[in-house]
């Protein structure tokens, strides 16, 4: 059996699956049930001066009939007293000494940070997560994403935390920035042991078109909330990978955002996350989703010959490069397997209206024909084709040696003639 244990910035966990700081990690009894179900660690629902929440708080985005494919919330940090939370942390640690509890924190002044850090560690926290990410409610009070969007403040508060902490400190980053790098670097300069990302994305989940109020509705008004769930995975993957490949960064990453199953987790890990955190999918389906995550990851590792998680973390990072480093002479064309084709001609419509007009219907057959001399190898036909392995993109030997844009510009390497550009 492959070994699933992980180390994220000095926080050791029996497996890479953590509950994100959110409703599923709101209380001791919940987290104890989660550990029993198999979760490796948990980031406690953010502690701070307890707040008052609104109702309703959540909005679901249905995509193509799938409920909750995207999700948003206007909930704030914990509404329970700090004392209650700390007592439950101690109780939970006693029952589950091997499962790390990371205490998420959000307060304002240096004195408050110092005090809460000490109490969190005394309660048994194995690590801290500084919540610099919440995009609503808290930022108006000068916390949350207001900190995460300002590298100088981020660096300063991280510095305090690292100074007062005896356990590893992770900084949770907000995605509500145009470039994640300065914010990751600020955490690094502050001395963080790792980062967690992403928190939720500023959003309006939808509009009640009969009442003329955005959702989720609080009486007859609403506000912007944080977007999360399956739909945000591509954004989260990019931000994780951008930091993972950045030469000067080099901190461990706990990946968050749309992780729903073992495959999502593997993707985050291949792009540099040593642990992943989950909120929305647990909210929608419960703690038992971790069973598929654990044995799916084990199967994946077994079938790829990985004995330990660190052998796969970051494995796809070297292949994530700049556009200017891609080989412009690599050429593919679409081929349709006539035996598999069911004649739906979705590829014809897609290619004609959405690509390069090179898949054509035929007189004598429902199987369309690809004009390879015009096909630019864009992939659209394969994406719409409902039949497995019916359309493949086959590499063409065009006689040209590999050449990137950068090599072309700087070294004059020859490029193949453009296709379909007339």
């Amino acid at each position, binding site marked *: 059996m492959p070994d699933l244990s992980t180390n994220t910035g000095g926080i050791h966990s029996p497996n890479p699956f953590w509950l994100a700081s959110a409703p599923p990690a709101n209380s001791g009894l919940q987290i104890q049930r989660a550990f029993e179900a198999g979760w490796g660690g948990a980031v406690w629902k953010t502690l701070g001066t307890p707040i008052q929440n609104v109702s309703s708080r959540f909005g679901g985005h249905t995509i193509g009939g799938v409920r909750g494919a995207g999700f948003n919330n206007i909930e704030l940090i914990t509404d329970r007293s700090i004392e209650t939370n700390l007592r439950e942390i101690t109780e939970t640690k006693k029952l589950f000494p091997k499962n790390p509890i990371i205490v998420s924190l959000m307060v304002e002044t240096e004195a408050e940070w110092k005090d809460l850090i000490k109490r969190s560690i005394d309660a048994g926290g194995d690590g801290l997560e500084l919540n610099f990410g919440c995009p609503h409610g808290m930022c108006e009070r000068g916390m949350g994403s207001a900190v995460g969007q300002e590298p100088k403040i981020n660096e300063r508060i991280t510095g305090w935390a690292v100074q007062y902490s005896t356990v590893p400190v992770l900084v949770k980053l907000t995605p509500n920035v145009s470039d994640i790098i300065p914010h990751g670097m600020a955490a690094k300069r502050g001395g963080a042991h790792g980062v967690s990302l992403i928190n939720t994305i500023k959003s309006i989940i939808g509009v009640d078109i009969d009442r003329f109020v955005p959702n989720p509705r609080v009486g007859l008004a609403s506000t912007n909330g944080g977007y999360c769930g399956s739909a945000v995975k591509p954004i989260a993957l990019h931000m994780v990978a951008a930091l993972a490949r950045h030469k000067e960064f080099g901190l461990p990453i706990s990946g968050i955002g749309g992780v729903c*199953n073992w495959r999502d987790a593997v993707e985050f890990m291949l792009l540099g996350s040593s642990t992943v955190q989950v909120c929305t999918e647990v909210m929608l389906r419960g703690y038992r989703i971790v*069973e*598929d995550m654990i044995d799916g990851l084990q*199967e994946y590792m077994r079938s790829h010959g990985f004995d330990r998680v660190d052998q796969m973390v970051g494995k796809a990072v070297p292949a994530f490069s700049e556009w200017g480093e891609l080989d412009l002479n690599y050429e593919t064309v679409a081929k349709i397997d006539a035996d598999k084709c069911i004649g739906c001609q979705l590829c014809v419509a897609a290619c004609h209206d959405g690509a390069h007009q090179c898949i054509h219907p035929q007189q004598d057959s429902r199987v369309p024909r690809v004009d390879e001399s015009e096909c630019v190898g864009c992939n659209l036909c394969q994406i719409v084709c409902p039949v*497995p392995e019916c359309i493949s993109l086959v590499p063409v030997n065009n006689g040209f040696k590999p050449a990137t844009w950068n090599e072309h510009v700087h070294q004059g390497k020859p490029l193949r003639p453009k296709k379909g550009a007339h």
Partner: protein
Amino acid sequence: MTAPLPAQRSETAFADFKLPLMRDAAVAEANRCLFCSDAPCVNACPTHIDIPQFIRKIATDNVRSSAKTIFESNILGMSCARVCPVEVLCVGACVYNDLEQPPIAIGKLQRYATDMAFEKNWRFFEAGKPTGKKVALIGAGPASLAAAHELRRLGHACTIFEKRATIGGLNTFGVAPYKMKADRSLTEAEWVLAIGGIEVKTGVTVGEQVTLQQLEQQFDAVFVGAGLGADSALGIPGENLPGVYGAVAWIEHMKLTKADMSAVKSAVIVGGGNTAIDASRETRGLGVRSVTMLYRGTREGMSGYQHEWSAALEEGVGTAWQSLPIAFEGTGRVQRVKCVKLDASKRPIAGTEFTIEADLVLLAIGQAKLGDMLGSLAGVSVHKGIVKVDAHGFTGRAKWYAGGDCTNGGKEVVNAAAEGKAAARAIDAAIMKGAARA
């Protein structure tokens, strides 16, 4: 070990009634599953397979683990996916029924995962550390196979005694070929036995070649999974004519060899249970033009499943309700069935006699109960041929356990699998009492 099957078998003429799912269809169906909490489908499964969990793993392409989830609960999950009456078990319990929407195709999804496990030769279980204990099992049907597999996981040596030449029990020689053919059942039995350490002695009838007393002396425990006995008879004139057979015996003949159907133009199947419906669909499927199911009760009163009955009707099976055969007639072989109509309390109505032509008559009115074979063992109680056991398969006499059709009176493969496994755990607890496990 088990005898090879002849290539020429009547059952090979049948195609699958329920078609397998291809990957995309399986994933799409799996994604419809709501992943219910305390799911009713799980509670409806006698082996309590974690259905939402195995379905979720199909949705995430984690098929190997999906299959493992199934086999962890039910080692006969591959055949159960095909032969279980899911309409009255898991699928019947799916919450989508309450929405009046198609329920999740749990059987087909289970088939998708378990077939892939067989195709890729995935194996999940290893024998436990040897305990030095030995258990005898009577019969090589689903109950004993499930029991033996569990006993092996717990480290006990197993010997199965099977009176027939072929293993698998009714799963091999009983279930309808449009659900599963005999070779598939044998493949499964061998896959189960591949855990190692299970000796199978075929052609040995307990009570004849070996006695109950010998088993009791030589083994630490005995599991009885002997199933049911021969088809019951009506006791009316002409019952011995060629062409009049017990339905279960005929089905075994049809499944394991080539039945000569050339002279059969019309068949009468007597009974109103699932064996009668199976036999009707099977004779129709083998090309018999006129097939009549003759039942002494009403349509509403028959014990056969509604979904099976609808399929039989669609396939052109005819019926005679509230009718009873009073004699089989013919020269040299059966040609006619003489019948009489019955009233609501199943009493013959004078003057209502009628005759149906039939070159083949199959009696599906029940099977003998084999429990009496244990009658000589003090402490084992047998009621109307059914062996009495507690919830863990214990008979009341030290060392003796039982499960499957011989204790439940004839249910499904999945019940036999559940009962065999439960008995194996009880046997383990009893024979390991006070003993340290290596």
